[in-house]
């Protein structure tokens, strides 16, 4: 429990919610990162610039914030390169097949009281917990 950050996490959550609400009010869109990224690969005319700019903003935030707070981006779990590649591929394919990720389903979808997104969130929470159980309890915390 030593790393529990209820106040910072709530403040960060409020900011995420505000950004998602802004994207809805100004652009009429759901702030799902996997959906925004997936749309770029579909290359539909007139639907590209807001997606690209949102992702550039996300990228720029990391570049700027890490300059002052590099500790916010530390990786303190032990993962090999192959494990990271498998993780990235499954997140990429899974979010497209399942039409959303933590932001699209977990925040915006549950926020809209969507039954689909609630089921999706329960689904990915269960398999994430099972995966962490296997890695931490069976494999000793390193893969």
């Amino acid at each position, binding site marked *: *429990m*030593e*790393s*529990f950050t209820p106040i*910072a*996490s*709530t403040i*960060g*959550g409020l900011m995420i919610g505000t950004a*998602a609400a802004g994207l809805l009010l*100004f*652009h*009429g869109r*759901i*702030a*799902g*990162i*996997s*959906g925004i990224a*997936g749309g770029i*690969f579909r290359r539909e005319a007139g639907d590209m*610039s807001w997606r690209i*700019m*949102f992702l*550039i*903003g*996300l*990228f*720029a*935030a*990391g*570049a*700027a914030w890490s300059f002052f707070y590099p500790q916010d981006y530390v*990786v*303190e*779990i032990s*993962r090999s390169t192959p494990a*990271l590649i*498998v*993780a*990235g591929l499954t*997140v*990429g394919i*899974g*979010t*497209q*097949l399942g*039409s*959303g990720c*933590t932001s699209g*389903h977990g925040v915006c979808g549950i*926020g809209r009281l969507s039954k*689909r997104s609630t089921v999706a969130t329960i*689904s*990915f929470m269960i*398999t*994430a917990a*099972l*995966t962490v*159980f296997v890695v931490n309890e069976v494999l000793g915390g390193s893969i």
Partner: protein
Amino acid sequence: MKVKIGAFLGGALFGVGLAIAGMTQPAKIVGFFDFFGSWDPSLAFVMVGAIIVYTPVYRWAIRTWQRPIWAPAFSLPTRKDIDGRLILGSAIFGVGWGLGGYCPGPALTSVGARSEEAFTFGLAMLIGVGAYQLFTRMRENRSGGTVDPQAAAMIDG
């Protein structure tokens, strides 16, 4: 131009929120699911914080707004059915999230922060996203039309 700047600022606010929330530290994500080790409930506070802001704004907007400020109409999910693809896809995503400790937003913003782990994960993730979308488009072209326009448009986000 203002539309582009607005989207940029939205992404930037989202990204800083992720960092402050602790979402860009894989150890905190793994810690949330580590019920048998030292459990870190922070992720629940992130989600509740975000939903507390989002839900009232969403309900107000869909009831009283004719259209968003910069777009002709709201583009919102319409499907209500629970299908196997939704559950299976989400389950696959969960495995990767637990394995790498990154979901898509934190991975991409951490690439901006020049994290090597995020770069490896993020590149693989974009390959996965791209491969899925290309595969979907090839299937559409073969069948001479859009197989599932809502699925293709990422109906849930």
